[in-house]
């Protein structure tokens, strides 16, 4: 087993709830807006990472992994941020491990989508 990330919470909803502070009365739910932007953005970053790994373009893969880590951490999507961080700092056996990490990210996204969509529904039925 080459992957080293440890299992952590998929989504910390308490971190998301922090942004309720930024809600403006009468405006759409701010947290729902963040969830929607995140769920649109992640597949785009996955595409960039997949293409960059196939092209052996480590810099582009690293940049996209860096972006994925940043936006995931900010929204409390913790396990995704951890895996993206591992990909961002990967050095050895790059192609093989990066492909495994991308697969982990995709699996993780399914779990994250379920949680975020449930939160979305709760806030904006």
């Amino acid at each position: 087993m080459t992957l080293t990330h440890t299992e952590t919470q998929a989504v910390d909803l308490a971190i998301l709830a922090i942004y309720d502070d930024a809600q403006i009365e009468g405006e759409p739910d701010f947290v729902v807006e963040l969830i929607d932007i995140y769920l649109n953005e992640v597949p785009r970053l996955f595409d960039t990472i997949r293409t960059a790994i196939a092209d052996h373009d480590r810099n582009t893969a690293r940049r996209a992994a860096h972006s994925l880590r940043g936006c995931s951490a900010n929204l409390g999507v913790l396990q995704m941020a951890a895996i993206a961080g591992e990909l961002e700092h990967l050095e050895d056996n790059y192609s093989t491990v990066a492909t495994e990490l991308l697969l982990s990210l995709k699996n993780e996204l399914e779990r994250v989508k379920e949680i975020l969509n449930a939160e979305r529904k709760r806030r904006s039925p």
Partner: protein
Amino acid sequence: MLADSRKQTRRILIADDDPIIRHMVTRFVQLEGYEPVVVNDGGAAYRLLKSDSNFRGAIFDMMMPHLEGIDVMRFMRSEKRLMRIPVMMITSEPDLKLMANSFAAGVTIFLPKPFTTDQFQSTFRLLLNHHLEN
């Protein structure tokens, strides 16, 4: 004169390629009563700053495509009409050497990711206080 006009403007330049951080920072700036002017990367910030210097402050992501935040800031520090605009740099790298170099290059204040509404608010107020002191 330039400084006086800048003290009156409430425009804040925001450049970040991450749509989530962009959305958050835009809202937080609005909540502080300022007017966000938002671009998607460092290249767009550079192009805007070539013709527009009417900003109370600027908020850049450290790592952006085309032109990184630090490069845009170096350009600002080389232009008389832009050099006194305070710059907040958003970073995910807790790299002390990088931060020291960035302060030396003219960054006013750092905001590490991830950040909360309160952390942004405190950092933003320090950024603007720095502006008033200068």
